[in-house]
């Protein structure tokens, strides 16, 4: 056990994966000497060499497409996309190749590619640096999508993502990179909780609050604040966004009868819609209110001086909880 930052935990997980399997290699823009703009790959090129930590030319389609070719040859590439908003030039290769090749070839060609994406806002950056594009990928059959919320998961789940024979989008909440936590290093992956399991991070009885990535800690703060107010919130960290571990969410909602989902991405067509729909299908008779979504608005990510209005925060989450509870003190009224 040691205390380390979120960013450092990913670094340690990458290092372990590279030590464990010589076929693992990292590729991306500025990940070598610089160690990435967030320093997540700091020191790895020095220790593993430029052939295993590859600074690529500036082209995301090519990063993804050459990763596909490397996977064809038995490598396990870990690609860094510098910021969420720069993944789109690689979208075609991700959607048409990375996601589909295993199916296309009836399982003959594996695509054990990990795509690391620092995502989300709250860091005061200009456009394209604060997006939450996860729903594009959770809707893409053939991909797995995870989002990590704490250093221990960051460490373990990057190892699991790399070890997984399927392609994995690994979303890193960039505004939490400096958060510290206890991390147990090493350990057999077979003993770790499955990358696809959701985790109840606070038990509660009145409302189920589902989230992932950067908002997990905000959700926990909300639960604490609500407790003072006599409301007991159960907080679930999804960890896996595709597939979602509905068993855990379902069991909780069957007890609480109320569901709030929060994410930074735009509301319409976001992951919250998928969760609301699926949980309604699974627990209709247990629901005492419609699932509530507390999300970013249907807008391009705004200028940084406006982001506080866009991003769900503690107050907006509590307002959502009030709505789910049908409480008159909801700031936004009860009309859904």
């Amino acid at each position: 056990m040691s205390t380390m930052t979120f960013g450092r935990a990913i670094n340690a997980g990458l290092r372990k994966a590279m030590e464990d399997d010589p076929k693992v290699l990292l590729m991306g823009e500025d990940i070598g000497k610089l160690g990435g703009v967030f320093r997540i790959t700091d020191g790895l090129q020095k220790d593993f060499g430029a052939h295993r930590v590859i600074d690529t030319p500036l082209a995301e389609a090519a990063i993804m497409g050459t990763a596909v070719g490397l996977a064809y040859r038995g490598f396990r590439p870990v690609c860094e996309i510098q910021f969420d908003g720069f993944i789109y030039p690689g979208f075609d290769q991700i959607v048409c190749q990375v996601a589909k090749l295993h199916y296309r070839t009836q399982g003959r060609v594996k695509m054990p590619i990990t795509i690391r994406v620092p995502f989300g806002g709250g860091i005061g950056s200009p456009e394209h640096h604060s997006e939450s594009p996860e729903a594009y990928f959770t809707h893409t059959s053939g991909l797995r999508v995870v989002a990590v919320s704490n250093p221990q998961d960051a460490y373990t789940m990057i190892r699991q993502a790399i070890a997984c024979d399927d392609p994995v989008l690994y979303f890193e909440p960039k505004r939490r990179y400096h958060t510290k936590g206890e991390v147990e290093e090493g350990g057999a992956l077979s003993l770790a909780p499955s990358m696809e399991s959701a985790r109840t991070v606070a038990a509660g009885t009145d409302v189920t609050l589902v989230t992932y990535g950067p908002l997990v800690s905000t959700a926990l703060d909300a639960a604490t604040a609500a407790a003072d107010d006599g409301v007991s919130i159960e907080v679930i960290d999804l960890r896996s966004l595709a597939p979602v571990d509905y068993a855990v969410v379902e069991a909780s909602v069957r007890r609480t009868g109320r569901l709030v989902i929060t994410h930074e991405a735009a509301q319409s067509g976001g992951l919250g819609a998928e969760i609301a729909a699926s949980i309604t299908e699974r627990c209709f008779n247990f629901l005492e209110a419609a699932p509530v979504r507390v999300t970013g608005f249907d807008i391009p990510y705004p200028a940084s001086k406006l982001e506080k209005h866009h991003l769900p925060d503690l107050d907006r989450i509590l307002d959502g909880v009030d709505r789910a509870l049908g409480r008159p003190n909801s700031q936004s009224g009860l009309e859904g």
Partner: protein
Amino acid sequence: MGHGEAGTAGQGQDMLQLITDKGVRVSHPELDPYIADVTDEELVKLYEDMVVVRRIDTEATALQRQGELALWPPLLGQEASQIGSARALRPDDFVFSSYRENGVAYCRGVDLTDLIRVWRGNASSGWDPYEINMATPQIIIGAQTLHATGYALGIQQDGADSAAVAYFGDGATSEGDVNEAMVFAASFQVPVIFFCQNNHWAISEPVGLQSHIPLAGRAAGFGIPSMRVDGNDVLAVLAATRWALERARSGGGPSFIEAVTYRMGPHTTADDPTRYRDANELEDWRAKDPIARVAALLEASGALTPAMEEQIAAAADGVAKDLRAGCLGLVDPEPEAVFAHVYATPNSWLERQQEHYSRYLAGFSADTTEGSN
């Protein structure tokens, strides 16, 4: 006006040639050394390959016309480009192609039925890429050039002396992927060959819409040496590919070959080229037929006799017959195939959908009052 180390041989009119349209063997100082060892016997083998893949192509086209295939992308006219290049490869080289390289797949040793599986609609890919070291056809234009580049990076990392070959068309050169592939290949100096079959058309678009200058010229701008060869000349294509392979195997990095050829048929069996191209153009290219010229050359030297030609034609017919039999013998995939292999590891979302659908299908057999699916 130099371009660093990377130059292009065969630019402009002077596309490199070893066998003229009329079947006369001409020499070329740059290419000759690469095919000095090719005997008449071997040239007859190349002739035979071309005859066979043309026959496969005709049969597949016929199968489509007869409703046995959903679609077929003919290679008619491109036999020399495909055979000349593919026959230069070793088994441990790896090919990434588009949908039109059925001649290449044939050289790689594809099972005939596997060749047809996709086009009959039975599966999204026909063969195991690792069995013949060739990826299954890529439909997204140009995407495979990046895969080849990545694979070549893997070869380099493994310290092997094999090469990756990307086949693509003239139209593909406009896609960002193809250009990015050249950037990466040049940056990492990986053993990849960019083999562009300029068949003059991208569906209805003439190559001049993609580029005013010869496509081989594109490579120099990325620091990649290139050759522009007569793509209807099987010897010239063989030589150029050997040149590129020699570079690849010896750590010389990527190369680019433009094989200037012509798509004599429609884009696919769904296409009607009379809507957009002049019949005269086709006639002009008929006179440059890749098979006829080798036949003329070999006949003139006596290396190919009428009896041999008949024998080869008969062998080709045999292949066509096998192809047809394999095609007609294909059994439709089972419904469960729709769910198979989306993931390599179990996926809860999909499992639920599959269970649901199985129950749904089972309902029909249980309850025959409703129409069947």
